[in-house]
């Protein structure tokens, strides 16, 4: 059943792709003429078909930026960055968009080992780490069996060493995969869409306002309460409750 759905979606999507490319090109044309609002509708039509790409998000964000709409612009740049984390254009334009934000939140820089660790882990997606783990398992088995069946001592020694290395590599990549997966589970960024939003110390309106956030600020979702309230954390470590409709999760 599941397979048929997959196959069906595959065919449908391949059908869509041609249509979407046309929409994308049309959107680009509108953008080039300066009809940013029209370009936005065209780009969003593509999104509605369930297909996306980093370029689509990038162009959409650009169009929003041109209309001086901070929050959606940043939102789609972040989306684009999720799909292609190392794109220079996205980084560049995101910094332009971030210039428009009002809040200045300092991020606590990571140092030393944890920074190194994170940069290594973030170099691949968890799926990629999983593939690497599987590959190293295969390598290990091959090396181990050839070690087992070979007769010359030198060969045996070399093969044993390689098999152990690949086993270690497999354990490492698997850990990384799990770690990366855990990071992604924990990483629930959202963008503040409300022009101004009070961050409360408790999830109700009576409680004290801890601080204020403005449009375009990136926050981390920690938990939510009764759908109306979401607990968020800022990069500088501050936490508080925000009305759920004021933010949009990435």
């Amino acid at each position, binding site marked *: 059943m599941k397979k048929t759905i997959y196959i069906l979606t595959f065919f449908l999507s391949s059908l869509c792709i041609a249509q979407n490319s046309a929409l994308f090109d049309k959107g680009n044309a509108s953008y080039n003429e300066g009809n940013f609002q029209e370009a936005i509708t065209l780009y969003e039509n593509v999104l509605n078909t369930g*297909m996306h790409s980093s370029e689509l998000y990038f*162009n959409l964000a*650009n169009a929003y930026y041109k209309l001086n709409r*901070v929050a959606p612009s940043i939102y789609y740049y972040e989306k684009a960055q999720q799909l292609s984390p190392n794109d220079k254009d996205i980084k*560049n334009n995101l910094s*332009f968009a*971030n210039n*428009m*934000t009002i809040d200045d939140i300092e991020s606590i820089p990571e140092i030393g080992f944890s920074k190194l660790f994170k940069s290594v882990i973030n170099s691949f997606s968890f799926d990629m780490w999983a593939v690497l783990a*599987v590959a190293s398992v295969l390598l290990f088995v091959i090396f181990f069996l050839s070690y087992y069946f070979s007769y010359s001592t030198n060969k045996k020694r070399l093969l044993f060493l390689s098999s152990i290395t690949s086993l270690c590599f497999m354990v490492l990549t698997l850990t990384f995969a799990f770690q990366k997966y855990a990071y992604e589970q924990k990483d629930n960024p959202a963008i503040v869409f409300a022009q101004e939003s009070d961050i409360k110390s408790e999830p109700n309106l009576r409680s004290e306002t801890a601080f204020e956030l403005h449009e375009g600020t990136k926050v981390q979702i920690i938990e939510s309460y009764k759908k109306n309230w979401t607990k968020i954390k800022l990069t500088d470590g501050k936490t508080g409750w925000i009305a759920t409709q004021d933010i949009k999760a990435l």
Partner: protein
Amino acid sequence: MILILGAINDNFKMKSIKYIIIFIIALTTSAVFAQEEVVFEAKVSKKKLGINERFRIDFIMNKDGDNFNPPSFENFTIVGGPSQAINNSWINGVKSFSKTYSYFLAPKKRGKFTITQSSIEINGETYKTLPIKIQITAAVDKPKDPNDPNYIASQNIHLIAEVSKANPYLNEAITVVYKLYISPNTGVETWRELDNPRYNDFWSQNINMKGLKLINSTYKGEDYRYVILRKTVLYPQKTGKLIIEPLTLDVKVQVPTNRRNFFGERQMSIVNRTVAAGNRTINVKPLPEQGKPIDFTGAVGDFNFKVTTNKNELKATEALQAKIQVSGKGNLKLFKLPKLTLPSSLEVYEPEHNEKVSTNLSGMQGNISDSYTIVPSFQGNYPIPSVTFSYFDLTTESYKTIVSKELIVNVTDGPMNGDSNSNKDKAKVSNEKSEVMSISHFASFKTNTNFVAVETTNFFKSKLFWSVLLFPFLAIPLAIFVRRKKDERDGDVVGNRIRKANKLARKYLSEAKKSFGDKETFYNALERALHNYLKSKLSIVTIEFSKDKIQELLNKKTVNNTTVVEFNELLESCELARYTPFSNVEMQQDYDKASRVISALDKQIR
């Protein structure tokens, strides 16, 4: 005609001549009829007096009598008296006589009292006076002495504070005007302020008066003149009942006296008089809570609000002025201007506050503004978000909110803000190093793309992942097991041979088997296979190939005779098949035979 008016109170001397003339006429007429009638009456100096005052009662008769019996004066104490006074006068030949008993009385308590009758016997007849009602009131500040210049001054000089509105809203402007009323027959030389009112709970401003102007007016129905001494604008800063403290003046007043100078003009005596305006209570209403905007900072009046910038486009590190301005009428100095919230990436300096406010009787007027100096360090578009300003409109008695337009400042030229998350210092350092990123302008749209489905399935943690990850481990024991089995079989010699022969037969006969059913090719292949087998086994060349030669060779190799015969039979049938029809069954038999022979030969040939 001379009048002796000893019995009449001296205080009345000052009353105008008119009264005296009337009095004389009255006296003369009474003198005419004096001979006939006996008059005995009681007269009091005041019928209404304060408890701390005194009064005089006179019992006057025009014929001498005996046995004067005064009333009891129950509620009064006799301060002085009785004193007798006898008046004899001859006017135009008519003799008049009067005898007076006088008492000075002080009241004991407040209330209305009656002085009972007194009696006297004149010519054998008893005469009685009428009872007199006296009202005693609360203590009077000062026993009013009508001839006292101070008293006169107090009656003729009044300081009044006029308040424009007794129940204003909080922060609504009210004015207090101090007027000094002066009656026409008195004059004021100078004054000085003894006590300036401190308007606690008010924001106040005095309006300077340019010169004093005497204006004719009325005060409590009488003709008066007044001077406006001072105007003050007040903005109540607290709700509830607030008291405006009195203004106190020390006034030098000219009071007319009874004395006249040589030329018959009245002499004026100069009196220092302290006048106070009296406390005024104002009930300040709070602003309504209903519909009060969150950003309301207390502005009350009628205002305009705008946010402006002096440039819309500039280069980085150039300065820009953004101005928040409120203009209009109201408590301009008494509320805070809304703050400008700006993108964090802009450098903003403390705003400069400007006030251009003039105060007149209707309140403050003008404008106040905050000027922000902004210096952008990086290029880009910077929004100046809209600012809201709320005030309470007194004419409609409702809150109004003005929202300014959102402005965009375009910084066209300058360095890029490198990493969005890096702090400014870091960015500045990179500026100094003039490290310009490869793209220092806003990148345009991208033209090519590959769409992928938004919904993706993860490989990690899927069933496939786990099976692919763990299956190779299972392969290790499996491989080892397979290897063991193989070794075992290698150890088994007989079995191996059989297997080997079968394998050989399969190898050589595979071609024949392929062409099974086609007689011609089958037997050709079979023959070739048998020859090939022997060639490889016995290492001979085809040319030497004959039946006899084969038999000889095989015998030499100590091959069983039956096998040799069978081999030859096979070769024969191969030759025979070229000329005779062969059935499939026979072909199968020959194939089986061939494989049997080959394996037998393989066993026997060493």
